[in-house]
């Protein structure tokens, strides 16, 4: 009897545990959703009323820190549009309130596409924004395009995105072709003191890395630079020794990198360990502009350069940028980055288009986006104006260098806050 009783008890315990195990993920999902989507204070009866916008970002997975940072930019822009934060020169909506519906792409194109379907068909959003990783944006925006919903993107940089013939896709930020041009213009400007004849490209094996590397290669011949090697690796590598060895073997004058945060950290540490310091690291953002890069790397981060659409030091030159960036760090405890600044600008552009369209009809918003002309932003470029492919022709890149743990703009001269350190001081022994 005793044994029987005991065993029954065991089964009960097991069921309880199982229930707990099954319930917890549900709770977590609920908590995560609750944190991600602020409830829009709708004003019933007033003109446009509640305007639903779907935001897709990688909020879990290995690029989640960058995804969350990007989402924060969208959230702050929503507060500006809804009149909760007033920024000089950036008006809010005079009519209607934006309600942001957040979806986690998990960095996965299929998940993102399913999220697009849900947001469009169930939630009836007026427009979409996101999705950070170019490879995810590419697939998800394709679905949105077929459904006829406008998509405004700030932070994906693959040149391929505006070559698909999408009708509803608009990118406010620069593409990697624009960024590569900025890099080469920068290299040309310093060519007297520091001539760069050979470069190596090391990149991740996805749309961001492959298309970006192609953009660099495409421009290099125009600028008379030889691409000595083109090195590929997989996301979240456990070891990058052979990659760094290959860079060293090519002996370049500068190294272009396309890497997300984990690999960016591992790559820099591996270089330091192998005792190899390239004359310059020219990063296409991402890992090198992730908010956790400098805190994690400490002194090893210094003197690396990254293309940026924005830099915290630019707030010295733009009052609106300063107000937004100050509010951002107060709210999230992390400084605004070029990723959040780009997504902020994408959301502000979308808000302006909705105001111009005076409608939540996707078709009208698309027309307003195509015709938009914005001259005041928080970015170091003239404004927003789209060409027929949906690319903002005003977008430009700046070159930032990490100096004493801070991003300083070193090019162009008009936005520069510091002069460049070249060549890179030895990584080993810092």
């Amino acid at each position, binding site marked *: 009897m005793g044994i029987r009783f005991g065993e029954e008890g*065991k089964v009960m*315990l*097991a069921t309880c*545990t*199982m229930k707990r*195990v*099954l319930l*917890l*993920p549900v709770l*977590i*999902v609920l*908590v*995560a959703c609750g944190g991600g989507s602020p409830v829009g204070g709708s004003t019933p009866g007033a003109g446009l009323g509640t305007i639903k916008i779907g935001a897709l970002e990688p*909020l*879990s*997975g*290995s690029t*989640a*820190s960058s*995804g*969350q940072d990007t989402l924060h930019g969208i959230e702050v822009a929503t507060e500006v549009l809804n009149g909760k934060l007033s920024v000089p020169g950036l008006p809010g909506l005079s009519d209607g309130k934006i309600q942001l519906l957040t979806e986690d792409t998990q960095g996965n194109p299929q998940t993102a596409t399913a999220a697009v379907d849900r947001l469009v068909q169930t939630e009836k959003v007026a427009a979409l924004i996101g999705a950070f990783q170019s490879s995810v944006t590419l697939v998800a925006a394709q679905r949105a395009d077929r459904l006829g919903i406008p998509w405004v993107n700030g932070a994906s940089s693959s040149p391929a995105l505006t070559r698909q013939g999408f009708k509803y896709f608009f990118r406010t930020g620069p593409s990697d072709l624009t960024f590569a041009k900025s890099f080469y213009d920068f290299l040309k400007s310093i060519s007297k003191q520091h001539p760069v004849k050979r470069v190596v490209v090391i990149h991740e*094996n996805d749309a961001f890395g492959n298309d970006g590397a192609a953009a660099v290669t495409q421009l290099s011949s125009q600028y008379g630079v030889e691409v000595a090697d083109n*090195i*590929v*690796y*997989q996301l*979240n*590598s*456990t*070891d990058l*020794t*052979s*990659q760094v*060895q*290959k860079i060293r*073997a090519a002996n370049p004058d500068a190294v272009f990198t396309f890497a997300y*945060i*984990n690999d960016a*950290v*591992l790559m820099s*540490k*591996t270089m330091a*360990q*192998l*005792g190899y310091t390239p004359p310059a690291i020219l990063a296409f953002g991402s890992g090198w502009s*992730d*908010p*956790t890069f400098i*805190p*994690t*790397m*400490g002194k090893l981060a210094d003197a690396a350069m990254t293309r940026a659409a924005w830099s915290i030091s630019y707030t010295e030159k733009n009052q609106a940028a300063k107000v937004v960036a100050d509010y951002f760090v107060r709210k999230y405890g992390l400084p605004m980055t070029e990723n959040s600044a780009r997504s902020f600008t994408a959301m502000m552009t979308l808000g302006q288009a909705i105001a111009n369209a005076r409608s939540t009809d996707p078709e009208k918003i698309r027309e307003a986006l195509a015709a938009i002309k914005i001259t005041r932003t928080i970015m170091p470029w003239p404004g927003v104006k789209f060409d027929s492919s949906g690319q903002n022709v005003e977008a430009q890149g700046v070159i930032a260098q990490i100096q004493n743990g801070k991003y300083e703009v070193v090019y162009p001269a008009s936005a520069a806050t510091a002069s460049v350190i070249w060549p890179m001081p030895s990584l*080993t*022994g810092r």
Partner: protein
Amino acid sequence: MPLQDIAQALISGLLIGAVYALVAVGLTLIFGVMDVVNFAHGNLLMAGMYAAFFAWLGLHLDPLASLPLVAIAVALLAGVAYQLCIRPVLKGPPLAQIIVTFGLLVLTTGLAQVLFTANTRGVTNPLVGPVRLSVAQVVIGGPQLVTAAGALLCTAAVYAFLRYTEVGAAILAVAEDPDAARLMGIDPDRVNLLTWLIAGASVGVAGGLLMNFYTVNPTAGTDFGLVAFVAVAMAGFGSIGGAVVAGLAMGCVQTLTGLVGPQYGFAAIFVLYLVVVLVRPRGLYGTR
């Protein structure tokens, strides 16, 4: 190709392979003793990495100094996981065990993100960070060397414990035949718990050591977990010596292939695995 490049790749491969081996040891031990494939194993590694990170951040302990603490913490976590989630389904069908350990993987990844945020974190200046050995242009980084040496020592300790202690013999006895072991007065349930504690401690050591040069985020365990699975499957489930050989071999294959085409390093591991299981379906050292 210069000889020193090949030597460098080989050394780097052995160094990372030692870590793969230690992660694989815990996994193979759990399978060997109770036939449970622990899909959440990579997340025990992740827990060890976080434990070492927070010991550094909060207590200012170097990853090497906090290693015993980290090992104990992860061992306890593994023990709790066993008591709460694994033990109740041990008598159930294998599918139930797979679902529970897989569920644990998803749950703990989610929990880590809620508790620790998705940010990638790393120890900024580990004690062994600046150490470098250089022999004939082949460089061995201090962090990698310490990590690999620690991993091999810990693996050897687990092996010696099983081989030369009475408790170890009890574990091996349960692995061999739980019913016969019970007849000999060994309580398989306690042995199972002990196995989880040992597996947790060893993977915790791996996680703590990795923080000397690697970064952690809520999905950090997934890639190492996957490699550990391949090591265990390639070696033959349950073989500790085999897991070590497989782990080291995988590290070398990854870095040597990387010399030719860096993008194929990880793929080469899986090709090696496929070749092994095609030629010898039960794995290199498998007996069943």
